[in-house]
């Protein structure tokens, strides 16, 4: 029995990857939840907004790399994030101008806006693939590991290794900073308050003289920032492929709904719940268990609940369970 080794194995294969993945999902879900709370529809184009913002960031990263600009041990992509945000913001504001504004003026029902956002999703998706192609793109550089598995073993003398990728550390730190800024913004600034007011009661916000177009514009800008940051972090941590981002839509939505659509706090909690479930259920627990039980009891199977191919089924199952037993989500968002 060796709890220390078991814990290290658990951290290495479950905790750390899930925390990084959870942060990425949380940032994505925050964007979805803000749009739902303020513009009142589920934005299916969010995954592809992430893909587009990331694409712009990648193009700038390559340009910086070709000019020899770098951040040393940190990935150059961090420098390109502001440009990615600007690109995504331009695209979102343009879309709002030519598409969503029309439906807002019509006071279209949310379900119509959802379908509209699906159309927008296909356009974004095509746009990204036309510019960058459908293939995997590599843009990560800088130091790959904060702590390597070998170093860790040498340092501690443990049997199990623990590797922390620098992208995982960057993801967590960035996510904490972004979330703190967002909550500060929503709670204390006048703009944030008018956004919350608009989300609470649109009619009354208008009667208080709040300009709806301005609230909508600010929302899109914030969403552009959240989507691009989430997208770049995910791309750095795993890999960038436009279609992967489209698939990311499901866990992102699951996170937002599990936490309660329209509730920023819920989006964060939801992101981590989905991430931990996905990683935990497709992980082969044999290694961790082997350290915990006497040798004779060592399991023969892999102790993997589901094969990795079924990763997305996990989000679905959690989604269904939450919708059945608590339709407004864990943090009581707006009714779906």
């Amino acid at each position, binding site marked *: 029995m060796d709890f220390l080794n078991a814990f290290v194995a658990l951290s290495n294969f479950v905790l750390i990857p899930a925390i990084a993945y959870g942060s990425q999902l949380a940032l994505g879900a925050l964007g979805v939840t803000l749009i739902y709370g303020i513009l009142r529809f589920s934005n299916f184009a969010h995954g592809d907004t992430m893909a587009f913002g990331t694409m712009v960031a990648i193009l700038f990263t390559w340009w910086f790399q070709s000019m020899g600009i770098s951040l040393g041990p940190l990935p150059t992509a961090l420098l390109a994030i502001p440009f990615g945000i600007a690109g995504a913001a331009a695209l979102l504001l343009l879309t709002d101008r030519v598409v969503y504004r029309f439906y807002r003026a019509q006071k279209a029902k949310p379900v119509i806006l959802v379908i509209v956002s699906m159309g927008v999703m296909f356009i974004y998706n095509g746009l990204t693939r036309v510019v960058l192609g459908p293939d995997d793109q590599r843009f990560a550089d800088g130091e790959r590991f904060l702590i390597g598995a070998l170093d860790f073993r040498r340092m501690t003398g443990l049997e199990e290794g623990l590797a922390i990728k620098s992208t995982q550390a960057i993801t967590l730190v960035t996510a904490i900073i972004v979330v703190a800024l967002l909550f500060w913004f929503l709670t204390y600034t*006048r*703009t944030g*308050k008018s956004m919350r*007011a608009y989300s*609470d009661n649109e*009619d009354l916000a208008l009667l208080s*003289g709040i300009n709806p177009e301005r609230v909508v514009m600010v929302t899109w800008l914030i969403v552009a920032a959240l989507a691009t940051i989430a997208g770049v972090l995910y791309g750095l941590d795993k890999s960038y492929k436009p279609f992967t981002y489209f698939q990311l839509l499901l866990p992102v939505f699951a996170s937002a709904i599990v936490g309660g659509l329209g509730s920023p706090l819920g989006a964060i909690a939801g992101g981590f719940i989905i991430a931990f479930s996905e990683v935990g259920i497709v992980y082969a627990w044999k290694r961790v268990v082997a350290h915990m039980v006497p040798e004779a009891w060592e399991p023969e199977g892999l102790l993997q609940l589901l094969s990795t191919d079924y990763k997305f089924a996990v989000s679905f199952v959690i989604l269904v369970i939450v919708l059945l037993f608590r339709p407004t989500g864990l943090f009581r968002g707006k009714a779906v």
Partner: protein
Amino acid sequence: MTTVIRVEDLHRHFGGFHAVDGATLEIADGSITGLVGPNGAGKTTLFNVVAGALPPTSGRVFMDGEDITGLPPHELFHEGLLRTFQIAHEFPSMTCRENLMMVPGSQSGETLWNAWIGRGRIAQEERALLKKADEVLDFLTVSHLKDEKAGNLSGGQKKLLELGRTMMVDAKVVFLDEVGAGVNRTLLNTIGDAIKRLNEERGYTFCMIEHDMDFIGRLCDPVIVMAEGKVLAEGSIDQIKSNDAVIEAYLGTGLKNKETAS
């Protein structure tokens, strides 16, 4: 007396149903005009059209001689036209104080840029607003509720909060939609006093939908009666009470027929 609001031949149809069917009326500057009529007379729809919540099917609305037909509510707000709702609206997740401080919109902290940069000026603005919000809550005798979430207030207190919202700025015309409905007597007196004081001290013009005739009689002159989407009569409360057409609209023709028969 000058006219502040003029409604000209206003129509608003919902499919085949003519909620407002050619209403024409004027509201005098500085008056407290009552708007009464049986349920379904089109009073609230008229409010909704005038206050920009619904576009009219046809007809015009003027404020100080300027055409304001179809302007959105937040622009009307900046023209000085405010309204309250029949079922009180509030920002439930914010405190009463914050609710009031949301008014007026378009403060300088509301641009993305200023939110991060111009902190000093915004802080100053917010301090002034905070002071004003506390004064308003004091005026409405609910200062003990200032840190309470507005969603937890009683129906009557929400109505007070709605009235409070109109006091955060210098409004010109305020449309009150059944501000007294579902409010107990004491609170109703508070609301009535507040309306009177605002009218006298700050020159607010009020137009209020109300069913409580005592309340109307105490505050309103003139009173406009609507029925079936049209303006039926206008005059002082006594004139209205003795108007045959009005009695007919409220009580039907049966009663009168019986009277003439006997």
